């Protein structure tokens, strides 16, 4: 087990992944989406897909500090966006603006610790990187009625003129909250919290019923 | 004075109701009064009534900027109960309850006080602990109360969903049989009539624009219509506007004025005979004699003097009602409205002297003032008459927020009512 130990370390991070022989279970694991996908309809107005087991990192830093911004760019290969409500994508890394001093970064599941360690190595001063991978998951809603389902669930204005591809907002969704990002013409990404995932799965199925819900595994 | 009775009605019907006297005069104020009550709502009118009736102080004016009983008295959901937790509050509200019982006869005005009982539902283990705690305290304080289980609750209100399918199943309730509802407007009118016929001047459509204060002592008020009016003592009973009036007198109060919303359904045939309240699911309902379901919402989080709140508050309340009473799903909401409630940090009122000598305030009733109307007026009148706080009012001094002797009734106050 690799607890980062170096003299200067004032925070404790660790690789939280077990070896591959142990199956990790995403928040929607017991919804058994694979089976639903097989047995369920193949066409409909809304398509639902979980992007399970990604590495989720919360990054806190001072955007006015050029050294920290440089360090972040070095670690991520892309500058963190300072324009509110925007996101950037570089390969398999996505960085979402959450607040002026907060970003949500997703990376491949196996790489979370690598990035965590890199931040601790590269960045100086007051900052925070927290692995939150176990606490949330991502679902993608797509299809011609994806927008309608979101309009039933969130007060955010998702009209093309107000919500271009790449925009990201933290917003209420039914009686939970999600980080909502537009990833395509008819595609949205929802970052949902683990403990609310069953409720939201139930809600989305209900809200999609009139359009027809396709589940992809 | 004209007595009201069924016979009187018959007599007047023969003369086509052309000879009914005015319920109250429309007097021009004198230059000076023994006591001026600022605010002609239920509490203010009750204060004037008891000053005249019980303390024989009739040289009294009630000055109201709008029409009598036009504030929260006209906007509340009329629930009357006295099952409060702490001794101080329990004594105050039970004092009011005893006055409610017999108020119609005392006033010779039917305020339609209907003791149909009130259920406070419990949905969690902690709810049930709090209910047990409160009911035990009530009984030792001489206030009627019982702890019911879900089955007993369902027997009293068969249309309530007491099944385990509910998101927060009903585990039980506290039950106060003597609780109920009353006709809110009639309460204000009855006290007004009673005060007027004993010589109290009711001055409507007149705003008190300032207090006249001479070296730390209030000696009268300034008004927009009648200029200065002198008084030995001034009682301020203006609910939501208390902070505004306090500012004129040069001090602050531990109050925030919030919008409190309520709504009614269309009138339907009688189906709900008791008052049902749920702090946890956050809604409460009773049915008026006209057939409307009278439903309460929680307060809005922000301060507001607009007599209206935000829509989500209404939505959440209606969700709660449909969750509690699924059969109401197809019943229809007729009207919603809002009041301005002055909320205290400990959910208890302020009945108190102030930094200004001879200026007394009665405020901070938050969401629960209506039920206390007679008791509030009764103890405030006694305090104004003697210049010393009535023993029941004593603990409700505004200065408890300095020494820390708060009376935290959030548990019992719960949802707005």
């Amino acid at each position, binding site marked *: 087990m690799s607890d980062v130990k170096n003299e200067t370390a004032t925070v404790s991070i660790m690789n939280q992944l077990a070896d591959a022989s142990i199956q990790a279970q995403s928040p929607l694991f017991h919804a058994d989406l694979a089976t639903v996908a097989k047995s369920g309809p193949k066409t409909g107005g809304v398509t639902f897909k979980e992007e399970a087991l990604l590495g989720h990192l919360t990054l806190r830093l001072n955007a006015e500090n050029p050294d920290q911004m440089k360090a972040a760019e070095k670690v991520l290969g892309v500058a963190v966006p300072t324009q509110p409500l925007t996101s950037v994508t570089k390969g398999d890394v996505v960085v979402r603006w959450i607040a002026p001093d907060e970003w949500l970064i997703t990376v491949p599941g196996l790489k979370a610790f690598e990035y965590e360690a890199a931040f601790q190595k590269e960045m100086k001063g007051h900052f925070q990187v927290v692995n939150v991978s176990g606490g949330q998951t991502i679902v993608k809603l797509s299809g011609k009625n994806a927008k309608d389902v979101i309009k039933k669930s969130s007060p955010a204005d998702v009209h093309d003129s107000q919500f271009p591809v790449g925009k990201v907002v933290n917003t209420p969704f039914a009686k939970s909250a999600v980080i909502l990002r537009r990833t395509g013409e008819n595609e949205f990404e929802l970052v949902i919290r683990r403990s609310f995932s069953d409720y939201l799965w139930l809600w989305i199925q209900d809200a999609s019923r009139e359009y027809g819900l396709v589940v992809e595994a | 004075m004209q007595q009201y009775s069924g016979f009187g009605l018959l007599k007047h019907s023969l003369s086509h109701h052309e000879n009914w006297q005015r319920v109250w005069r429309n007097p021009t104020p004198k230059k000076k009064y023994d006591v001026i009550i600022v605010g002609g709502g239920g509490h203010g009118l009750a204060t004037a009534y008891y000053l005249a009736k019980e303390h024989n102080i009739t040289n009294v004016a009630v000055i109201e900027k709008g029409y009598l009983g036009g504030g929260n008295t006209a906007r509340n959901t009329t629930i009357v109960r006295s099952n409060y937790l702490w001794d101080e509050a329990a004594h105050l509200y039970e004092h009011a309850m005893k006055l409610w019982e017999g108020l119609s006869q005392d006033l010779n005005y039917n305020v339609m006080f209907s003791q149909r009982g009130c259920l406070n539902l419990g949905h969690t283990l902690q709810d049930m602990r709090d209910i047990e705690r409160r009911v035990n305290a009530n009984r030792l304080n001489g206030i009627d109360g019982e702890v019911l289980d879900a089955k007993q609750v369902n027997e009293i209100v068969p249309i309530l969903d007491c099944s385990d399918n509910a998101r927060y199943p009903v585990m039980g309730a506290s039950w106060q049989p003597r609780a109920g509802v009353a006709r809110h407007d009639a309460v204000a009118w009855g006290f007004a009539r009673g005060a007027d016929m004993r010589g109290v001047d009711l001055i409507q459509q007149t705003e008190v624009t300032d207090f006249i204060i001479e070296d730390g002592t209030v000696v009268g008020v300034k008004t927009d219509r009648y200029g200065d009016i002198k008084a030995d003592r001034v009682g301020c009973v203006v609910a939501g506007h208390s902070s505004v009036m306090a500012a004129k007198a040069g001090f602050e109060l531990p109050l925030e004025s919030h919008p409190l919303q309520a709504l009614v359904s269309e009138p339907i045939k009688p189906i709900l005979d008791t008052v049902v309240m749920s702090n946890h699911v956050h809604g409460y309902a009773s049915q008026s004699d006209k057939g409307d379901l009278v439903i309460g919402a929680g307060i809005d989080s922000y301060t507001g003097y607009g007599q209206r709140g935000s829509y989500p508050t209404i939505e959440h309340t209606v969700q709660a009602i449909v969750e509690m009473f699924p059969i109401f799903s197809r019943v229809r909401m007729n*009207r919603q409205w809002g009041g301005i409630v002055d909320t205290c940090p400990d959910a208890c009122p302020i009945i108190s002297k102030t930094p200004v000598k001879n200026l007394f305030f009665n405020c901070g009733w938050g969401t629960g003032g209506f039920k206390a109307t007679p008791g509030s007026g009764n103890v405030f009148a006694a305090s104004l008459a003697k210049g010393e706080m009535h023993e029941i009012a004593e603990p409700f001094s505004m200065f408890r927020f300095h020494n820390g002797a708060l009376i935290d009734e959030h548990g019992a106050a719960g949802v707005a009512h």
Partner: protein
Amino acid sequence: MSQKNRLQSGGRIDRSKPLTFTYNGKQYEGFAGDTLASALLANGVDLVGRSFKYSRPRGIVAAGAEEPNAIMQLGATEATQVPNVRATQQELFSGLVSGSTNGWPNVDMDIMGLVGKLGGKMMPPGFYYKTFMYPQSMWETYEKVIRQAAGLGRSPKEYDVDIYDKMNQHCDLMVVGAGPAGLMAALTAARGGARVIIADEQNEFGGNLLSSKETVDGKAAAAWVASVTKELEANENVIVLPRSTVNGYHDHNFLTIHQRMTEHLADRAPNGQIRARYHRVRAKWVVLATGAHERPLVFANNDVPGVMLAGAVSTYINRYGVVPGNELVLMTTNDNAYRTALDWHDAGRKVQAIVDTRKNPTGALVEAARERGITVMAGSAVIDVQGSKRVSGVSVASISEDGSKVTGSVKKLSADTVASSGGWSPVVHLSCHTGSRPQWNDEIIGFVPGKTVQKQLIAGAVSGNFTTSGALEQGHQAGAEALEKLGLKAADVAVPAAAEVKESKPMALFHIPHTKPTSQAPKQFVDYQNDVTASGIELACREGFESIEHVKRYTAMGFGTDQGKLGNINGMAIAAKFLNQSIPETGTTIFRPNYTPITFGAIAGRDCKELFDPERYSAMHKWHLENGAKFEDVGQWKRPWYFPKAGESMQEALNRECLATRESIGILDASTLGKIDIQGKDAREFLGRVYANAWAKLPVGRCRYGLMLKEDGMVFDDGVTSCLGENHFLMTTTSGGAATVLNWLEFYHQTEWPELEVYFTSVTDHWATMTISGPNSRKLLEELTDDDVSKENFKFMDWKPATVAGVPARVFRISFTGELSFEINVQANYGLHVWEKLFEHGAKYNLTPYGTETMHILRAEKGFIIAGQDTDGSVHPYDLGMGWAVSMNKPFSFIGKRGMQREDCVRADRKQMVGIKTIDPNIVLPEGAQGVFDPTASIPMPMVGHVTSSYWSANLGRSVALAFVKGGLDKMGEKVYYPLVDGRMVEAEICSPIFLDPKGERQNV
């Protein structure tokens, strides 16, 4: 055909689609395009209900939302019952089942009607305030009788079978009403590129144009409406909502729309469709084009079936091809209503006379009437109506110029229909919702929308402009103005032409005089639904109810389901006249949402039943379900409460769980505890400020318990915080308090101490937390890890990283049970795996899962508090005997320090937390029991504190309890008594709250 009042042609109904429906048990036929009201009129049904108070027969008066009488019970099955549906707004569908809502035994032969006739004079406004008082004991009986009369329709007795939902909408311009003005506004804005929503309560757009013979743009009005609607529907930036009532206009241009999706198809939504959809609209700008309601005139017996609004009569003729009678008398104060006589005449039925209250009416329509040979009786009025269940005739007399008294002799005319028009009242309702007061306009004899802070424009009849051409023009202007305000380019839209009709001046008359004074004249109704009469309003004023709000409340005027749409202005005018005031002086009552009533289900939307409130689950929830857990609601969490085995009672299960834990090992799913990752060089300092105890010297690798206080010194949360690194802490909070605490930390950081370098991130959902507790817990842990968790190298209140069951974990050696305990935290994705591994290896130790209840018992045996159960926001650490968790000499005055030193907080006789042992060890006190020192005291008994926690302790073989007792900490060994609701007086002894292992040895093994 049976529809005796149906014309052979004309109207917007489809005669090729007959529909059968039921009213009061009888079958009738109507056509697609009918409303229930038009179909009833077509079939010659006069009686649709009985009035509320006097139970008088009532018929259909109007053709829209303002209808006060035709209030129906709808529904073919119990589950689909809907009370109080306005027949004038209910579209007819095949199989519709309806019934009148008042009248006993039935609406035709009604016994209450007799009571109304006989008792009527005994029931003036407010009569119930004046009687039913004596004797006091009788009121409950009186009330039961009064309540019988209550209500119109009835609630269903079965659960709703339909579903409702909501949509959040945003737009540049919300247009309310799709009459000529609304359509033009929407068209103009849409062409300019604005995002537009246009909604109208009717089934098709067009408003008044649907009921008129006018032409617009050279074509039939309806054709123009169709072309505009088509263009709007084709525009992807426009949302077109028919059958959609804008019900509320809230602050910052937020509006709610109730869209009826299937109520016109069947009383149960076909194949799972949504019955109604609620739109929550945020609009940059709003155009109110809500039109106007015609004002009836107030005259004697004006409620006899057959008395209708003039405009409504025209609507039934022109839109539905129904003439609701044979002989018409029209009474009007204006030219506009002459159209009704013309329509009636052109439909081939007899117009007995037009009774015009004006001395010498002129104008195009007047001429047209004369040309048709219709008698026009100028300067006259219908002062009374004959007939009971249908108009049989009217009394006409000439009146004074000002309309105040009857001057001429009374002449009788036969008629079965009386149409009346007192002019038009703009529909100002929505404009009032955000606090704006309507303003009186003498020109149009009505109130128009007043000043507002909302970004709102008005167009058409609502502004007092009652002509079609004016509406079109104003609508266009509003659309153009909106575009300009929105910064969009002007659109090129030509205003279509509409015929200008020259009209002579209307007369301001509301209340028609009678030969007798109002108080003695036959009833002259103002508010039909609440039986409010002109004499009732005068009586209210006579008794001193002079504010219009008092009049309204005393007479109940405007409190019906129609909310005074017809009656309020007339009522105000009558009050004003009686009080010798102008109408503006008298003022108006303001309208509140909803414009028309809305199904509760639609407001609740999908947030009901299983979606009412989220259920939050831990990563091990599936296991709990499979293992028969009973659950407790903790906030939104579903936490295992206890795990009963087959046939076990709750107490048996708890005993087993408790014993197993203290004898071997128990395991608890603690994932729901709030967890906050705290980093920064000032993290320690911050902790020192928000916790009561000291944090400066907590070394890396150690954990510490802390109490969190409010500024008043009262405990509001607690938990263990661990030092992960010099600048790195993991805080735990109560399950219910997680969000509150994080918000609390952010609040103080952002608003009070921004200079402190510290960040907070919630990791509650990230870590799955399981606590193994009991003497064998180390053995079990050692089987699953290679890391050193020995007594020597892993001490009580240490934490360390370790690999457990192959999963990297943070293990905390902390204990809430008083036993040797290990709290294992792993990334939640592995939670279930580790949990199951623990059971694989734990079987031999009888590893026993336990829930919140056993956790509560075990901690109570140790005297550990639970914030929220043993605290209530009114106790500080010293009240809890937890002074050890307060460090008064910290340099910074931590939150709560000053508060707990206030005068009242340092009283010696405060209620303090102690242990309670009942003298009879088998008695378990109820939690919430109130203690007294003197069991003989009489009511009100002085109470000294309540029991906060109380359980049967299987380990101790007796009951244990925690309670507050006045000055309790100095009363060890003394007696306290608990009078219970069941009458028992339980004697108990005050003791230390630590019942088990006072030295705390068990957790240190």
